[in-house]
């Protein structure tokens, strides 16, 4: 498999979905639930996956996030998100 292309439409893989993790004290974190595990998501990772709705293309997601992180080199943003999605795809948590 290859990294996402501009036309890819990243989404959560079958059987992977958002959930809430509640810590003692009632603090809630958004998590991605997948078979036998979960990813606690904060910050950038959370933002990226919230954009991966199966509708937006990879190119659109990148454009939106480049606006969000205007101070960072756009090519670095693209490379980081591409790697992030590719690794989650290998874990079968994301499809594109």
């Amino acid at each position, binding site marked *: 498999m290859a990294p996402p292309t501009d036309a890819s439409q990243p989404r959560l893989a*079958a059987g992977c*979905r958002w959930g809430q993790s509640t810590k*003692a004290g009632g603090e809630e974190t958004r998590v991605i*639930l*997948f*078979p036998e595990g979960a990813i*606690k998501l*904060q910050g950038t990772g959370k933002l990226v996956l919230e954009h991966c709705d199966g509708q937006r293309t990879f190119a659109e997601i990148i454009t939106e996030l480049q606006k969000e992180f205007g101070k960072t080199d756009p090519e670095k943003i693209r490379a980081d998100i591409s790697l992030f999605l590719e690794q989650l795809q*290998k874990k079968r948590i994301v499809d594109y």
Partner: protein
Amino acid sequence: MTQSVSNPLALIAEVTHRCPLHCVYCSNPMQLAETRSELSTEEWISVFQQSGKLGMLHAHFTGGEPLARADLTELIAAARAASLYTNLITSGIGLNEQRLKALVDAGLDHIQISFQDSQEDAANWIAGAKAHAHKIELSRVIRSHKIAFTVNLVVHRQNLDHLEEMIAFIEQLHPERVEIAHTQYYGWALANRAALMPTRAQLDKAVATIAAAEQRLAGKIRIDSVVPDYYAKYPKACMGGWGRRLMLVNPAGKVLPCHAAEVLPGLSFENVREKTLDWIWQESDSFRRFRGEEWMQEPCRTCDRRTEDFGGCRCQAFLLAGDATATDPACSLAPKHHLVEVAVHKANGTSAVHQPTTSSSFAQVQKLNADLWQYRTNPE
């Protein structure tokens, strides 16, 4: 002493011990809970509700064969309603299209089909298109639903030489995951250890086969595998540490920190019929018994790895070394490691080897996101 305890992450719901199979490596206790003592539908529903409130994320339905429970659909729905991710671990025997649809409609997130070879020898397993026809058909039906699909393969001395063909067969079923689990030696498997333990040569070949398959299937099928602990340098962090991540409720409502915990002498376990899960997690002697480091002996007590593997498996320490607080004899640093070396030596005349590999790709995502966690549900 007050212990600061974080909440459990997953429930292992052993909903029945009834099972149509008789696997030689079964990890279930040799004393099985009888049908008439099984928790009722309402009692299980309460367990799921309590689990959700405790902050657990996953409910793993296992057994026995969970499909033997006529109310399984209702139980899945209740677990999902309690915000739990639902995982069904099954042989698939007795699962037809209609029942699967009902389970999916009830909120099933993930199905894990295990391949047994209790009735077929290894050669038949490969040639046994007939024996597997049902699973091939079942896989097709599973793929028509939007749920995660894992195939679980239990490997041991008798079938490990056929691993490559087994993986090739499973590929046709199009799961997202294959879990290759070496038999671990508890219950029946300990009694049958000599017949089940692979040789070093078999293991080396299997490691190479898995590495090649991981590369070939990257992005299509993820392969999770673990080296059998008798051949590893360090022990496994059994269940992610005693009373640290998981709670197991057995068919009769007894709450255990792991599958095998009932073999340990001097421990008694609470029942959901009498106590809440919250109390059992926080307060019970059984869950507190091997938390923290107070109980550890040397070399664990001063070992740098004690926060990673927690001294290994308490049940294995007891079963092999006769002392539940001893270092797991699977550890190369254990005073009683010779017990494992003797078993390995008998299996192939060489001494224990360094752990050749762990599942490779996981480390990469962990670097990206330190908050990712994963555990294994069964010590098998």
